[in-house]
């Protein structure tokens, strides 16, 4: 095995070259290398460079409730019909558990009602059919429900749309290249490096930002509200406008946030912060129609089921643009504009996990990691030199190439180095030395049993190999399991361990082999320096 074949030397040089080329970008300042050279640097985990990791979950319960509420409103609209002649009278429309029930007053209209609802409710599914079922129940009841697979489809759709919206919002905030990925069915991971306020990030990401303009129902008396007897077409929403605690509003929205084409922070006539917006064509015509019919009345601007303000319509608003005023600061007006521009989330997103590390703390961790790697390596070098003399030096050379290959491989594959990953790196150095220890000890045994130096060295490599592979197989198993454990930092530990096992077996076996082979050839040694 000690024969210096051409492919062996070639392989050693290639691995050295690989290690050097791909490690180099980490050792020089950015943009120092010419454009044709590899530029990838080791990417540091958030625990090392500072930043926020947020795991957000789509609130599926809220999503379901929202969908049922929307479907209820759809049923109301459909039964009312577009013209008076089409109206079907009904009572008891409401959500019961996972279904919606309604009683058609006139039994002769039951079939017509069924047909109308069955034909028009819900959305078409890719698999054919619609995503709602409509059934006639005894006593002139009609029951409407979502088909089971619709809930899943809705959650998937909500996550996909949420990711798009979050991306727009984060981009608008000017955060530094955040990573947004889907995890599982209903979760989104956001990794935002750098020094950004995680609470601000959460506030911007997590806000549903569903905007509606609804008419205020002034016909309802305070007594009726107190008795809870508001008309079924109305709802009571809390208010933040500072004039009143709550408003009674028509459920039906005049325009919604989706009809906005732009929104930006601005100032009102009193030079107070406000949000200017403009509608698309549909929004413009609807708002023009409603405002011209309701001059002198109040309409409410509602964000996430809370009234921001309820201005009086002074004249028909036909220009398709306007201004939201309320109790804004410059910042909150700017944030609201940002949210409105990016669109509403289909459902609230809740933070289920958050890890934030300040940049300074991350820098400290990098320093501590570097120091412990340097000290660990220095101790290992000293010890193997003391223990094995010249051959220890060969092992140390192999270790250096090993280090270069690990860093090079991690840079090349964009693997992330985390703080536990640093521990993995240190451990890998120790494991790499073990392969050489196994080989050298074997050589000593062989030499002791009377073999000549060269043959003992050769046998050492050959016979230690199975043990080395055996011993490293166990580490591979442990590392693969760790990698699948999922969580980021531990994944980093597993990854360095895994890459390290392969590079260290390679370097410890091959590089020391070539060096020892060369040494035998150059010095024509008759004894092993370690026996």
């Amino acid at each position: 095995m000690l024969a210096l074949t051409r492919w062996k030397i070639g392989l050693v040089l290639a691995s050295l070259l690989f290690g050097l080329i791909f490690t180099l970008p980490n050792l020089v300042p950015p943009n120092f290398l010419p454009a044709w050279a590899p530029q990838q640097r080791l990417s540091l985990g958030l625990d090392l460079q500072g930043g926020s990791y947020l795991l957000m979950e789509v609130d599926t319960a809220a999503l379901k409730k929202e969908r049922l509420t929307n479907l209820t409103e759809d049923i109301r609209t459909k039964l009312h019909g577009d013209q008076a002649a089409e109206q079907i009278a009904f009572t008891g429309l409401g959500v019961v558990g996972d279904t919606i029930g309604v009683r058609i007053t006139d039994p002769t209209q039951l079939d017509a009602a069924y047909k109308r609802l069955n034909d028009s409710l819900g959305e078409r599914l890719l698999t054919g059919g619609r995503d709602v079922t409509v059934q006639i129940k005894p006593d002139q009841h009609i029951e409407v429900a979502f088909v089971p697979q619709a809930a899943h489809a809705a959650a998937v759709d909500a996550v996909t749309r949420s990711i798009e919206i979050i991306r727009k919002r984060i981009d608008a905030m000017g955060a530094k290249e955040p990573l947004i990925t889907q995890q599982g069915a209903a979760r989104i991971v956001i990794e935002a490096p750098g020094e950004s306020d995680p609470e601000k990030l959460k506030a911007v990401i997590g806000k549903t930002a569903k905007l509606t303009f609804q008419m205020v129902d002034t016909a309802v008396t305070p007594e009726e509200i107190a008795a809870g007897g508001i008309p079924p077409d109305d709802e009571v929403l809390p208010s933040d406008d500072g004039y009143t605690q709550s408003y009674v509003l028509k459920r039906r929205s005049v325009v919604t946030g989706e009809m906005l084409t732009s929104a930006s922070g601005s100032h009102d006539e009193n030079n107070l912060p406000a949000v200017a917006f403009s509608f698309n064509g549909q929004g413009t015509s609807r708002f023009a129609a409603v405002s011209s019919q309701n001059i002198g009345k109040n309409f409410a601007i509602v964000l996430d089921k809370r009234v921001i303000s309820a201005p009086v319509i002074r004249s028909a608003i036909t220009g398709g643009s306007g201004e939201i005023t309320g109790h804004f600061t410059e910042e909150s007006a700017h944030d609201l504009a940002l949210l409105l521009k990016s669109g509403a989330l289909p459902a609230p997103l809740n933070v289920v996990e958050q890890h934030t590390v300040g940049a300074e703390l991350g820098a400290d961790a990098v320093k501590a990691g570097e120091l412990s790697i340097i000290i660990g390596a220095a101790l290992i070098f000293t010890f193997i030199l003391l223990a094995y003399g010249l051959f220890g030096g060969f092992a140390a050379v192999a270790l250096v190439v090993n280090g270069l290959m690990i860093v090079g491989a991690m840079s090349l594959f964009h693997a992330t180095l985390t703080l536990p990953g640093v521990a993995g790196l240190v451990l890998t150095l120790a494991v790499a030395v073990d392969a050489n220890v196994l080989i050298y000890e074997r050589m000593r045994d062989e030499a002791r049993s009377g073999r000549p130096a060269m043959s003992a060295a050769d046998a050492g490599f050959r016979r230690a190999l199975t043990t080395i592979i055996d011993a490293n197989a166990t580490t591979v198993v442990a590392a693969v399991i760790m990698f699948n454990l999922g969580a980021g930092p531990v994944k980093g530990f597993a990854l360095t361990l895994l890459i390290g096992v392969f590079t260290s077996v390679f370097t410890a076996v091959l590089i020391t082999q070539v060096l020892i082979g060369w040494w035998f050839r150059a010095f024509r040694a008759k004894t092993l320096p370690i026996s």
Partner: protein
Amino acid sequence: MWPLIKLIPHDTHFPFVSLARLFATLSIIAVLATVAGFFYPGLNLGIDFKGGTVLELNTGAKPVELGKVRGALTALNLGDIQVQTFGKPNDAVVRFQTPAGQLPGVIVTRVKAAISQTLGAVTFPRTDVVGPEVSGELKIKGVGALLAAVGLMLLYIWFRFELQFGLGAVVALFHDLTLSFGLILLLRLEFSLNLIAALLTIIGYSMNDTVVVFDRLRENRRKYKRMPLRDLIDLSVNETLSRTVITGVTALLALSGLAVFGGESLRPLSIVLLFGIVIGTYSSIYVASPIILLWGAKKEDEPALPIAPQPARP
């Protein structure tokens, strides 16, 4: 005398097996103590597995007024809140559980706001929040990972070794894992995902060390067919001793750098790993090998069944 290896006598004859009884007793006591420790005081679960929030805060030049922080947080009705300084007087850590039915992400925003309002200029260098569902999942994943690792090692041993070897390796594996838990219990280390990673590494290392000794044992058994098992074990352990020592020392040196200079957050991980290296080495000598002996010794009267397929006579 250089190289140092010449200082280690290469032809050692330590009677390892004769001390096996003593160490077996010590090991059994330690394992039982660990099992008892699981019930009382129990593992000190970190937020990875228990859920909740850990918040580090820094008040710059002036020391943290802990009383004020406590006062501000009591008003939020979060239940049991721990506030304490660590390292320097201007660094403090706040821990609390998310009250049932509340959103953990919202609570932490509120807590930070309350602290900022009370203390004025304050930064939060570290925030860790784990919601109840996530901690539940991590618990399952963590236990699953440990079980999977042990299971795969068993499978590996099953393919790689005969039954009595396998048994020895398995007992050593459980021994190392249990005693590593014992250390975690003893030092009241916060049980986190990092420690699961450490335990998985120990499982790997423990096996690694056992495999090296067993490889030699198997080889010697072929070489010296008539040697009694007891002597075979002593011989193999002695022959692999300098490797065991050198590798062990290398690993300990490398990890001690990490334990001393690696910073607060890597310390528990490195301490458990250091312990794992020591215990993994110990167990290959004093747990794995004697188990084989125990198995073999029982059957030594029967002609066909000590370790070797050939009949072995004492």
